[in-house]
């Protein structure tokens, strides 16, 4: 079995097969590098999607159906107070893009019952595969995006620190027993959505191999300057939490990305396409010399800051993205719905203009 790599998605509807565009993009990028491409990506990486979206969809669907059934019966029986009570559930149109994205964040951060349910489901899904990987002596890593960074953080911390339910027994999944090789986060919102423990205090922090409370050996964190979700309480652990964790070999300081190749700078693909993202990721998941210095230099030279699809409209795109930064750095997760609306405005504009979204 090759290196186990979990993909954890972000906000919004992610039906079965959601991982395909991400896996395809990873394969396309992987094949660009000569040494890597001598073996298919499946020989080197076992990519496993981790989805939690069905939990949110089921809750929203239940509310929508309740509204429909009760609302009509309440109208029929002239139960005005009940009609009024359930009417606001109509706001939650499942097909509405912004609502579905906002609802995920609200459900996860606002309702501890939902959060704990998601954590257990994600931790179980990961732990089952991690156990198999350990049996086969394979390393494991995580690549998470957006809301998935917070869910990965919470679930892994819980997995690393939990005991056997109802007993104080070891689990075999403590950091010194089952440490991840790489935790890679794209558009990390785990600090904005943090509950207990705070993001910087968790057991997901990087450190020496097998050290207590260090959930991974390497933490790669990629942020984009224009990503509006990274304005409120950005994940930027300058003092996290001691010298070891912020040592460059465990937590390389990566400058914020600035490229604009799509208007949706928050998307998985926009992050992954940048050589500064996928090259260190592939090297950490395989071996350092898998991508030569020359290949890296050529990849960077062939990757302009402004994508060719935008042509001379990049300044307009940047203005729209600047406009989507509606939150202040001191804002909290409650600003996420407004941010999503603003970003969706930029996306709609790009679609209308025929620009890459």
């Amino acid at each position, binding site marked *: 079995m090759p290196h186990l790599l979990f993909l954890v998605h972000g906000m919004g509807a992610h039906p079965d097969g959601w991982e395909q565009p991400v896996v395809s993009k990873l394969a396309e990028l992987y094949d660009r590098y000569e040494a890597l491409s001598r073996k298919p990506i499946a020989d080197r990486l076992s990519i496993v999607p981790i989805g939690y979206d069905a939990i949110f969809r089921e809750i929203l669907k239940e509310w929508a159906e309740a509204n429909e059934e009760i609302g009509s019966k309440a109208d029929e029986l002239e139960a005005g107070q009940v009609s009024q009570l359930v009417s606001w559930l109509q706001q939650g149109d499942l097909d509405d893009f912004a609502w579905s994205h906002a609802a995920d964040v609200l459900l996860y951060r606002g*309702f501890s019952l939902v959060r704990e349910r998601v954590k257990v489901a994600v931790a179980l899904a990961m732990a089952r595969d991690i156990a198999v990987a350990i049996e086969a002596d394979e390393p494991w890593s995580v690549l998470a995006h957006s809301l998935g960074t917070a869910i990965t953080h919470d679930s892994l911390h819980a997995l690393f620190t939990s005991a056997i339910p109802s007993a104080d027994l070891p689990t075999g999944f403590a950091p010194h027993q089952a440490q991840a090789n790489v935790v890679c986060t794209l558009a990390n919102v785990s600090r904005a959505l943090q509950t207990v423990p705070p993001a910087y205090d968790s057991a997901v922090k990087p450190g020496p191999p097998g050290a207590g409370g260090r959930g991974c050996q390497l933490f790669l964190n990629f942020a984009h300057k224009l990503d509006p979700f990274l304005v409120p309480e950005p994940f930027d652990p300058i003092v996290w939490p001691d010298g070891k964790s912020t040592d460059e070999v465990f937590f390389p300081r990566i400058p914020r990305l600035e490229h604009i190749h799509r208007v949706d700078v928050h998307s998985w693909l926009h992050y992954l396409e940048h050589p500064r993202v996928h090259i260190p990721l592939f090297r950490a998941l395989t071996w*350092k*010399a898998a991508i030569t210095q020359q290949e890296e230099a050529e990849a960077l030279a062939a990757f302009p800051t402004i994508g060719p699809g935008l042509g001379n409209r990049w300044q307009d795109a940047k203005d729209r993205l600047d406009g989507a930064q509606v939150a202040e750095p001191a804002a909290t997760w409650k600003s996420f719905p407004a941010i999503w609306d603003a970003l969706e405005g930029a996306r709609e504009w790009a679609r209308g203009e025929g620009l890459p979204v």
Partner: protein
Amino acid sequence: MRRPVGFLLPATVLATALLASSPLGAQCDDLSASPTDAATAASLLGELESLRCLGSPGKPCLDSLEAICAATDALTNDDATHSDPAAAFFAVGEAILAVLPPGEKEDHLRLEIRRSLVAVQEEGEAEAGPARFRPAPGELVLFRTETTEIDLERLLAGNCPAACPQTYRRSVTILTLSALYRRSLAELLEDDRERFLAGLATLDARWETYFTQARSQYPWELAVNSIRFRRSSVLVGPPSDQVILLHPSLALELVDGGDGEEFQDAVVLELAGYHRWSWKGAAIKRPLGIAAVASWRGGAADEVGWGAIAHLPRSWSLGAVYRSADDLTLLVSADLAKLFTNGRGVYERVIGRGE
């Protein structure tokens, strides 16, 4: 006398080209390769490590390590049974120490293995830390930043080309023995992992039950019950009770219809109540709840009825409401959200009886 550059180049370049241009990339058989420059050796070793050719189950082993590879396979084989797994583990650990050749880097590995063996012996299996023996991601570095750090890329750079093949094999040996010890440690924890996974699966199944078989919750109820539920940094199961608050549902009232008693549709609003149960595995057992209700029946009975309802096992709810017009009427309610999803059959049976 300076040798012609052209004389020097072919050996290094040829070896590099041969190793680097294989259309299949590195193979596990390359354990016995003889690279002649540091870059090629490091790249080959890095790829072999990434392909788990060094000490992983079912992979080729250096001739000099065949016996210890076989012993580790025997320890970690799922089909194998050991009367004393801990003793078998210590035997493998000691065997690894015995075959570890002399050398400064090897001494670092020896020290780490000894420390680990002592920790397991004195503190128990929970102290087994296989993760410590895994190289840094993508790198040829063991015990990174520790005083025992082993940087094999640097070792190769310092010994190639003069002693490159020997240093390459020395590096293969260090990484292989580290992997074999890592596997032995991981084996010690297998029972813990299985026990934990079973417990976690039960928690997951309970949560599934909580959201699909316990009473449905509207957003405001989910908010109240979330506030009551403790915030936790570890993995926990769902609660065994719920507060009911302003919970609308469909119900049936048993009324005198002139030709005898009949069920009539009603909309019920549970104003406030409490519902509790106990868990048996992932199943809800002995559910019991009570709530104060307001009921609308429409038609001639436009007056709101006031009463109470009890929630009983098997998703049945039974109550009574009072109106000045018809005194007490019996109220039979099924949880609305469940009626129109997985509980529709219950509702239809109730309707059927009323007709």
